């Protein structure tokens, strides 16, 4: 799509000004935005990328950050490759997004990767270049989310849908310095990255290779003022002796349910900070942030007419309509992003108690272990492979460290062997099968042997939320 006005990310950045005073700090390198005025991270090959569908597949976050800044408005599409995308899904992503260029921080393409039109190396060492930054495209930003099984869903945003929740006019004594535990190639991290860029701030990027303590030390050394992460990130932070190396003015939680305990602990640890928990998803965009220090959100947010973000609860789940929702899915998933009324179903179940809504887990029993989704059916299929198992039900168990853990109720074909009283040996065997077939966070933390499972009239095992 061609752009109607000059609203590229670079244009917005230059409008905010003070480019030479604004830093992006990676774990091993840093740049100022001013470096990009007469230089480029793309080795003088920006023109080659004009109009292309580009897969941004870097190991480190800083090169990805620079590529996004340089390529919005230039590229037709920017496909943000998350750090843990399984190699087997790369060909599908490339085909679905019609990728014809790859930007990477490697010197040469991976021998195992599919061949695409152009391969451009992106480096945090900015080389002088007369970059022509006039953007003509309204670039599509493609974010990947984990699907039920198989390849990721590809969610289409634009800079304006991504930036819809970002308001100017932060009132601060000095310049803001943002930090986040998230990776900027996922929705939550990208929000923070754009907040920093469009709000005239600097930013400390995290690194997968760095410990929590090292990141906190680095964020503290750069004087981070605004910092965001999941409740699990924050619980880990509060267990770190480096927790007091930061003295933020603003602490943000999102991506998982923020319970009262973590909000209280953060308030005690950072008494000077405003603490807000936000609700957002890749598909639904940023819906709201709650700053009253209480878990859940006020019921008055639901059903407001004419608000920037309209919310309703239908069949128990939260639904959102706003200009911040994604545009559509890329590729044919047989699934539409929004209903005919324009509302996106978040799949997050909510319960009304007094005048407040509380999150009650995901529809379909999807379990969120420290930000990683687990589909119960996938784990049940593995457990059911054990010859002694008749059926199983995988469900969530609340946990104060990761928000939730996976546990399983198992019905056996015959009674437990009397030699194995409580089934310790059989539990060990079943867990071994799970460990061989599943990533760690999907392996049940405990197995209970039960005589039967409740089955509904539909013939399906009854699942309860959270």
């Amino acid at each position: 799509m061609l752009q109607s006005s000059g609203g590229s990310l670079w244009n917005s950045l230059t409008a905010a000004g003070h480019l030479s005073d604004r830093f992006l700090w990676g774990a091993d390198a840093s740049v100022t935005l001013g470096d990009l005025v007469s230089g480029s991270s793309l080795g003088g090959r920006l023109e080659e990328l004009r109009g292309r569908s580009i897969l941004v597949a870097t190991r480190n976050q800083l090169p990805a950050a620079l590529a996004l800044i340089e390529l919005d408005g230039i590229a037709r599409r920017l496909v943000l490759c998350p750090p843990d995308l399984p190699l087997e899904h790369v060909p599908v992503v490339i085909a679905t997004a019609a990728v014809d260029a790859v930007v990477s921080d490697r010197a040469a393409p991976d021998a195992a990767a599919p061949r695409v039109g152009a391969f451009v190396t992106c480096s945090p060492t900015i080389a002088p270049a007369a970059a022509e930054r006039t953007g003509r495209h309204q670039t599509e930003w493609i974010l990947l989310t984990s699907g039920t099984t198989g390849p990721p869903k590809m969610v289409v945003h634009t800079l304006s849908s991504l930036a819809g929740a970002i308001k100017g006019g932060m009132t601060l004594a000095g310049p803001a310095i943002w930090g986040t535990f998230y990776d900027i190639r996922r929705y939550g991290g990208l929000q923070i990255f754009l907040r920093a860029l469009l709000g005239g701030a600097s930013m400390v990027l995290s690194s997968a290779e760095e410990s929590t303590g090292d990141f906190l030390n680095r964020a503290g050394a750069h004087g981070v003022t605004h910092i965001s992460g999941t409740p699990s990130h924050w619980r880990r932070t509060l267990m770190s002796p480096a927790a007091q190396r930061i003295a933020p003015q603003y602490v943000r939680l999102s991506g998982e349910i923020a319970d009262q305990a973590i909000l209280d602990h953060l308030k005690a640890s950072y008494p000077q900070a405003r603490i807000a928990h936000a609700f957002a998803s890749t598909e639904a965009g940023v819906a709201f942030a709650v700053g009253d220090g209480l878990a859940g959100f006020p019921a008055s947010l639901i059903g407001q007419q004419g608000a920037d973000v309209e919310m309703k609860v239908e069949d128990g789940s939260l639904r959102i309509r706003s200009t911040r929702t994604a545009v559509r899915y890329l590729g044919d998933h047989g699934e539409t992003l929004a209903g005919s009324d324009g509302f996106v179903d978040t799949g997050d179940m909510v319960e009304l108690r007094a005048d407040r809504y509380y999150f009650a887990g995901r529809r379909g029993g999807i379990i969120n272990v420290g930000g990683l989704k687990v589909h119960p059916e996938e784990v049940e299929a593995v457990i059911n492979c054990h010859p002694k198992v008749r059926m199983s039900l995988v469900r969530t168990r609340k946990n104060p460290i990761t928000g939730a853990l996976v546990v399983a109720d198992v019905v056996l074909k015959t009674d437990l062997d009397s030699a194995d009283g409580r089934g310790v040996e059989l539990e060990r065997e079943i867990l071994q099968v799970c460990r061989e077939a599943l990533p760690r966070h999907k392996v049940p933390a405990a197995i209970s042997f039960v005589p039967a499972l409740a089955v509904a009239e539909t013939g399906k095992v009854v699942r309860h939320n959270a």
Partner: protein
Amino acid sequence: MSVRSTIVSEFERVAKDQKKTLALLSDDLVLLDSGLDSLCFAIIVARLEDTLGVDPFSAGEDAGFPMTLGDFIRFYEDAAK
């Protein structure tokens, strides 16, 4: 079994199950340096809730989060009182 020995044996068991190399356990060991990650701690806390009947992390009282193994043991000893 005492709270201390229950905790120590859970650390050892979870490290083994999760194929993590556990640091030498001493009271001043910083938990994040123990070789265990968040998932390991989550499992330990769930298992301790089953064996000791308390989950001080969810209690949301004024006590801050434990940073060392010694803090962690006191956290549970205080909650179990």
